[in-house]
């Protein structure tokens, strides 16, 4: 019986496995393989060069390390501060204060709007000539604080960060759902024992939702590793590379028709992602049993 079921299982899994191989696994192997080649369109070149692309990335490319730094910093900000923001809001909302349902719904809205639309909104918000931010500063007598927010080296990075930092709707929703699914009796017991609200949040609720927070941290990390459209539409990675991240840098390298070099950047993205996921899993004990 078990042997017969194995056959059926394999048969039904076959389409999924084939799709996985064709769309993900084989291209992944090709990325790794072609990163070892000088692979260009103009002039047409496909020559094995070993790890030269990687050596060039880390030792000769003046743009790569700043771009890598931007990516790592954004991952850290997103995983720590962004998730913390969403978690804090969830911890406030699970106590069901007045209007908590309204806040839960409206806070989610920016996360369901297209990233391109949000990028266009911020592009206009930050516009040095007619943007709402500079206009507001001028209206309240703070004209000296006006900046070309997206294209001044001093303000570009934080300005781009703000386009996604505060929108922690997914984190809030997931953590809140986990909080609300917690047995009320645990909270009641803690209250009977004399625990304050903060103590309940820190010592009772937080350990119970830790795995869910770990999941949102993983989501935050993968989101930042893929981040492209927001940066492309707002600053294009500029000024210089002060707001460029690895996916955008890969894209500009592809546009220069240097595919081998672009794939080496892709390999770095994969390795950064792997390290990040491993660290998050260990930190939150995602693989441990309760």
């Amino acid at each position, binding site marked *: 019986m078990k042997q017969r079921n194995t056959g059926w299982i394999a048969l039904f899994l076959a389409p999924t496995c084939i799709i996985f191989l064709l769309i993900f696994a084989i291209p992944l192997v090709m990325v790794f393989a072609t990163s070892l080649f000088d692979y260009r369109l103009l002039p047409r070149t496909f020559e094995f060069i070993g790890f030269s692309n990687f050596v060039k990335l880390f030792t000769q490319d*003046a743009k790569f390390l700043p771009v890598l730094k931007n990516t790592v910093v954004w991952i850290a900000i997103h995983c720590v501060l962004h998730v913390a923001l969403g978690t804090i809001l969830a911890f406030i909302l699970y106590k069901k204060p007045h209007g908590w349902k309204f806040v839960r719904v409206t806070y989610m809205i920016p996360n369901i709007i297209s990233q391109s639309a949000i990028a266009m909104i911020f592009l206009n918000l930050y516009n040095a000539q007619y943007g709402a931010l500079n206009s507001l500063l001028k209206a309240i007598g703070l004209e000296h604080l006006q900046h070309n927010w997206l294209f001044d080296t001093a303000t570009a990075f934080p300005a781009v960060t703000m386009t996604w930092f505060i929108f922690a709707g997914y984190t809030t929703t997931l953590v809140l759902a986990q909080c609300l699914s917690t047995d009320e009796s645990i909270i009641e017991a803690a209250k009977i024992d004399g625990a304050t609200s903060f103590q309940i949040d820190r010592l009772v609720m937080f350990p119970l939702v830790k795995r869910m927070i770990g999941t949102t941290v993983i989501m935050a990390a993968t989101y930042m590793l893929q981040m492209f459209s927001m940066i492309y539409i707002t600053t294009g990675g500029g000024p210089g590379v002060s707001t460029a991240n690895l996916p955008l840098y890969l894209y500009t390298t592809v546009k220069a*028709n240097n595919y081998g070099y672009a794939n080496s950047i892709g390999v770095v993205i994969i390795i950064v992602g792997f390290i990040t996921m491993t660290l998050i899993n260990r930190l939150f004990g995602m693989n441990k049993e309760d």
Partner: protein
Amino acid sequence: MKRMFACLLSLAMLLALVGCGGSSSQPSNSGDSASSKEIVIKYPTFQVGANTAAPVVAKLVEEFNAEYAGKYRIEVEDVPGDANYADKIKVMISSGELPPVVYGGGYKLLDLALQADLVVDLTDAVNADPEWKAMYNETWESADCRDGRIYASSSEGQLIGYYYNKELFNQAGIKPAETWEEFFDNCDRLLAAGITPLAMDTADGAWCTQLLLGAMIAGSGDEGLEFMNTSYPTNYNIPSVVDAIAKIQKLYQTCTTLDANGGAYENAANNFFSENVAMICNGPWMIGDFSDTSKTTEGFSDKVGVATYPGGFVYDAPIEGMFVTKQSDPALEEAGIAMVKFFTSPKAQQTALETQGMVPAGATVEITQTALDAFPLLADFLEQASVCEKRGNTLTGLMVPGLEDTFSAELPNLASGTDTPEQFCQVLTDFATANPVT
């Protein structure tokens, strides 16, 4: 029964997987219509919507479809923005599947497509048509021919100067400059009159700014003029370029709008249409927009003057034309050739001239009195350009592929003063030497 149902279900899923790959028997860029004889030419283009050439392309598509009804039909695919169009075509080149007809423009797509061996040789088709052959002059040949073979057909010339607001100039008491010293003096006088002198930009290749920059380089002397006539330079650390970059930096900081840093062509054009600035660099295709009340106020075209650049320089760059790409269906290639011939014919070029004031590419195409009456600015500009001895290609037209993006990304650093002119030129040099075109 249950087992049979399960078998059929898994088979259906596998077949669906195969179906997702599409058919290899039909070219991916076209299809036969219901009539089974009409060949559909899928034509992605950015010359739609608010683009200045949109009315011309729409008209030509309509006329082509009418003339070839039942045989060929063009289906336009809107691509927002020329930068996105160039990126799309480059991706398609690398995948080996291009639409039947590609508009080369100033995006260096022909050479990329030739490298990938995706371009149809038009030599025999052109030679078989005396009228088509007669349009090829030296400029066309430099843009559309390689190793004596014809691969593209041009439809528009690229004579470029700059436009100015006559009213704002009068307010400042100035006239178009004949030297660069006079040009900068004009900027100071405009500022003194409370008028922002220039529309500039940094994004999307910084079209307006790079025209101004290139003209400054060309006007600086023999070295600069030679630079502006050299394809794919790898060294930007030459005195004429560094000096011009320094001037551009000063203009960004004192003579343009706040949104120039980070702004694209649309922002620059809007500032000119809104009379926020006095001057903008652009080509004759913009002339039609001055009368477009959806973009500017009624009567704005009467306020606009046109000039060639100080020092007697005008851009007269060959602009790559449309080319036909290799398809699995020879009939589709023939359809593409018919489309290219139609879109670049003398009649089509006159349509563009009379509709939008676009300078024709063909030496044999008459500048009609209709066009000159409709666009007196064009008449004025052509007369001024005819006496210009110094000519060259656009700065971004000369750049190695990909450098335009680096140029655009680095300009905000130059504009804000983070980069010195020397550092900016070094960034360009580093990229060009790392990605040379051989």
